[in-house]
């Protein structure tokens, strides 16, 4: 039954993209499917969240009806706008060596990821103590599901709920199943989906064989496998950031309004994934606006309305969540009278920088960041050309934001906080960094 849940989400996302793009055939089928499933799962998660708000409790039948209703509407719209004609041009030869290699790679990785996921079936600390615990509230809390917001601050009650909502949606299709099976399967699917999106995205800009190598580099990374199957929401954060990167890199040169809406939708979903997602999405949008209006000195942007429209559509859940439901955050940028910024100074700065440098050479990453450093050094100038400039400055800006957040630490010991969070930051940035570096280093001349 969970298969049907995934199928409905996939079709939802696929049809949404089909209707958004002016020329759907411009998007390669593999990437269309990967982005379709990513978007669809996000939409299903949002529908579940709104369902909980509207009906006041978890109602599997109503969640299924919501999703099927939206899917029927999108299918009808696709027929009406003759969008399905684009599918006729798709040709897929499963017997060509590249396709066989991709299929074999993903089959092998499905086995490997499932094996490791079963080795920690309840996920790691934050997974069970935050996300999976909240999932129980959403499903079994009945009218009291909003008690989530009254829980002890150790459970981060202000964190957005996309991952538990996606899992609640998947559970709605078979309420007899064990919750652990749902969360475990989601982690494996998201880990594979991230690799699939990376492959599809890179194939647009570089040779497909190199794109496959990049995908293998990500998916075979032991630490990626361990973190992705830990059931943290960071894998979802990494996925939506990557999807946002790919669509943004497509949107600027093509000036396609549909792609702009799609980028906005992904960035809105990113914001509902975790508090960090809000900062990531706002930073990316801010940098795009600065580049467009200040650097390129353009007065108008035809993509502005579709881009912000898409963003606000999915951001709406975060706005409702943050302004109407969640308690204020007490860990980030705490400027209250009780907060003492003991680390705001040279010593704090030194500790943070040292920690970040040490993390790049940490053996758990198996030289990945050193390799990335070499790639960047070899073509440094290209990172500041065209739309790459926005993406490169995005990482620099985000490091600046992180630095400020760490410096204003009030409720934790700074070293402890760094130990617990830096590795995860590297993890969720990893797919997007690989995408950016590979797409620049091996860029096709025509792209």
């Amino acid at each position: 039954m969970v298969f049907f849940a995934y199928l409905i989400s996939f079709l939802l996302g696929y049809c949404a993209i089909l209707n958004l793009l002016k020329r759907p055939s411009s998007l390669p089928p593999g990437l269309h499917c990967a982005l379709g499933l990513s978007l669809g799962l996000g939409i299903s998660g949002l529908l579940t969240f709104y369902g909980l708000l509207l009906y006041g409790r978890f109602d599997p039948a109503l969640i299924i009806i919501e999703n099927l209703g939206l899917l029927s509407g999108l299918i009808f719209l696709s027929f009406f706008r003759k969008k399905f004609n684009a599918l006729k041009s798709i040709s897929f030869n499963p017997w060509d060596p590249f396709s066989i290699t991709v299929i074999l790679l993903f089959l092998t990785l499905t086995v490997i990821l499932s094996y490791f996921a079963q080795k920690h079936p309840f996920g790691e600390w934050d997974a069970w103590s935050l996300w999976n615990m909240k999932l129980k509230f959403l499903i079994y809390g009945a009218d009291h599901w909003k008690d989530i917001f009254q829980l002890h601050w150790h459970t981060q009650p202000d964190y957005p709920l996309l991952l538990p909502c996606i899992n609640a949606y998947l559970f709605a299709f078979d309420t007899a199943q064990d919750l652990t099976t749902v969360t475990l399967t989601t982690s494996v699917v998201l880990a594979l989906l991230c690799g699939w999106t990376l492959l599809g995205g890179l194939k647009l800009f570089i040779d497909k064989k190199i794109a496959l190598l990049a995908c293998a580099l990500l998916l075979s990374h032991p630490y990626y496998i361990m973190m992705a199957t830990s059931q943290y929401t960071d894998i979802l954060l990494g996925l939506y950031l990557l999807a946002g990167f790919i669509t943004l890199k497509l949107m600027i040169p093509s000036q396609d309004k549909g792609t702009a809406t799609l980028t906005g939708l992904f960035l809105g979903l990113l914001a509902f994934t975790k508090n960090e997602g809000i900062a990531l999405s706002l930073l990316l949008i801010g940098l795009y606006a600065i580049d467009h209006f200040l650097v390129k000195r353009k007065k108008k942007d035809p993509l502005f309305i579709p881009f912000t429209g898409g963003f606000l559509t999915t951001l709406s859940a975060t706005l409702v969540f943050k302004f109407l439901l969640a308690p204020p955050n007490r860990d980030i940028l705490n400027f209250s009278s009780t907060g003492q910024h003991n680390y705001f100074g040279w010593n704090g700065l030194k500790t943070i920088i040292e920690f970040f440098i040490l993390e790049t050479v940490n053996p758990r990453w198996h030289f990945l960041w050193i390799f990335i450093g070499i790639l960047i050094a070899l073509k440094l100038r290209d990172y500041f050309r065209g739309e790459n400039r926005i993406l490169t400055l995005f990482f620099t800006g985000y490091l600046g934001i992180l630095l400020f957040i760490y410096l204003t630490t009030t409720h934790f010991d700074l070293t402890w906080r760094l130990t617990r969070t830096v590795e995860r930051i590297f993890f969720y940035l990893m797919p997007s960094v690989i995408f950016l570096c590979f797409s620049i280093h091996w860029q096709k001349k025509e792209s």
Partner: protein
Amino acid sequence: MAIKANSAVKIISISLVFFLILVQLIYLLNLFVIFEKGKTSPVQEPGYEFTELKLKLKDTGRVGFITDKDMSPEGNDGKFLEAQYILAPMVLELGNSANRFTIVDSSNLTRGLAMAENIGAVPVHVTPYGKILAEKGH
């Protein structure tokens, strides 16, 4: 010359990618061996020490949770979060003993029983792991 240098860079880069994937696969293989050798017992669900209390607390919305252990974010042993996870959707209130039921998680049983007495509650159940369920007005 420039073209030659460019292709050399490309060859070196691709070789590096292959090298990295190879290193990763070796580590992955190593990880398989570690898992197979080291973990023979089944993984226990977080909060299993409190599972018994689920039935006792059926239909209870809020339960107190008191402890004599370090509850700082850096130093806590995770038992409060484990209890919250396993007993969800029940709300556990750390440090609040005003509810009818309170879970006492102490470093030893004698101390735990004294803690229950101190809040004016009677221990109604003790799990095999030494977690006490105390009730007021029993």
